């Protein structure tokens, strides 16, 4: 059973566009929601993370929107660049169960120059 459902599987945007990646979860005990970026041959790198007490968080060109009632969260990449082409994973964890991360299935993003 997939604890975190991620969509779309792949995404192609033009340079300067705003790709949006969506994730949904069921476990209301989740209290930490990070996004990771992974390039081929590399491990996942933490991009940005949010906790359920806020509805939005921005760090540079990356924004997380969080909807607690809908149990959904999304990643927006502003002014996307070809260097943003990578696979993006959402994840969720619950601090009362030892911080085990549950990952989505990933979104392959391609930014066309």
């Amino acid at each position, binding site marked *: 059973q997939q604890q975190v459902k991620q969509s779309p599987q792949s995404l192609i945007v033009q340079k300067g566009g705003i790709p949006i990646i969506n994730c949904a979860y069921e476990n209301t005990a989740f209290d*930490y929601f990070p996004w990771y970026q992974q390039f081929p041959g590399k*491990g996942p790198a933490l991009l940005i993370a949010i906790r359920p007490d806020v509805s939005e968080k921005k760090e540079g060109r990356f924004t997380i929107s969080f909807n607690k009632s809908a149990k959904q969260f999304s990643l927006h990449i502003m002014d996307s660049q070809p260097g943003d082409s990578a696979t993006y994973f959402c994840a969720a964890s619950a601090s009362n169960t030892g911080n*085990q991360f549950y990952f989505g299935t990933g979104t392959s993003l391609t930014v066309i120059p």
Partner: protein
Amino acid sequence: DAGVTQSPTHLIKTRGQQVTLRCSPKSGHDTVSWYQQALGQGPQFIFQYYEEEERQRGNFPDRFSGHQFPNYSSELNVNALLLGDSALYLCASSITGGGGPQHFGDGTRLSIL
């Protein structure tokens, strides 16, 4: 400040063999988690070590075992290797207390022939 380091980077084994993978956590981190990432999939949690003990375990058979040393470094051991064990094995470190970020190494690519 050294990040998470893993060794070896690549490994080729045959079915039935045993393998040991190694991980050194990021400076200041005391908790190590191991994940398996199959091609095109998100990482799947194997287990987590803190204070030299296994604290949490995912849905993996007991062919997968681990160890944490007093300096917080860790090993992942897999016995009786199967073709399906071919994957990228990722180590992530964090500060204990739960609910915080995990920092990943670049993984060990294990291929089973």
